[in-house]
């Protein structure tokens, strides 16, 4: 996968969570993931097409997403309910938008589909290109989450 894709998704994630949920996540070192197992309890997945094709997933631990959505809505949410799933879809949408805006400055015009959300322990993530994917791990005071990206330009899909 082209390393130019990493920073826009990293920056977009930090920007969205800082602005909308007042949470400042700390990014760890990206690594390669070869299986389809989600690294979190709730995942938002969105397909990307255009100058590059693939998919983006955000997988949150329960602790992290409960705090993030509670902050967004201004009310405490204690379990993974419909509001949480709905918010994960919107967060995924916003991260995708922020990243695509940055990628546009690199000459890559990418459009996004409508996100889907999956919840539950040990669920799997099916990337459009099959994988492997790049994981950007993040830490928050309430738990970890990851950005899971599998995207490639048309000349080198999945590379």
């Amino acid at each position: 996968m082209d390393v130019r894709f990493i920073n826009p998704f990293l920056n977009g994630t930090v920007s969205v969570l800082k602005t909308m949920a007042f949470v400042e996540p700390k990014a760890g070192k990206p690594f390669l993931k070869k299986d389809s197992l989600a690294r979190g309890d709730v995942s938002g997945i969105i397909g990307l097409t255009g100058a590059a094709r693939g998919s983006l997933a955000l997988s949150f631990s329960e602790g992290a997403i409960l705090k993030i959505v509670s902050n967004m809505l201004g009310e405490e949410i204690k379990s993974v309910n419909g509001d949480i799933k709905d918010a994960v879809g919107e967060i995924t949408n916003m991260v995708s938008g922020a990243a695509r805006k940055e990628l546009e400055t690199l000459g890559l015009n990418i459009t996004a589909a409508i996100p889907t959300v999956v919840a539950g322990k040990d669920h799997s993530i099916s990337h459009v290109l099959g994988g492997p994917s790049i994981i950007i791990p993040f830490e928050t005071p309430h738990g970890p989450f990851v950005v899971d990206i599998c995207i490639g330009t048309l000349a080198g899909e999945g590379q």
Partner: protein
Amino acid sequence: MSVNKNLKILIVDDFATMRKVIRNLLKQGGFENIVEAEDGVAALKVLQSQKVDFIISDWNMPNMSGLELLKAVRGADDLKELPFLMVTAEALKDNVVAAVKAGVSNYIVKPFTAEVLNEKIEKIVKGMAA
């Protein structure tokens, strides 16, 4: 000149949590008279049944997108002057150009703060009154 805080604002977004977030941000700006719709089709039904003073709409929605809603509003004689703020993750230049061509009043790219949202509303309303 201060903006009338009794404006009836219609929030259109397919994500219920985002409607709630926008509602909370509007309340911080003193706006309490708020109605909601989950997509463009539902928004048109609201507009047919009650008087609305201001629309805040998402772009990406099933059934009818924010851009399609904007075009429908601008094409209706009794609604064409209605202030229309697009609040969206779609920041690509082509999208902004399409919205401007369709007559959007202003545009906010997610993520955004309460200050940005309320400043945009004031700017649009004051611009229309000028």
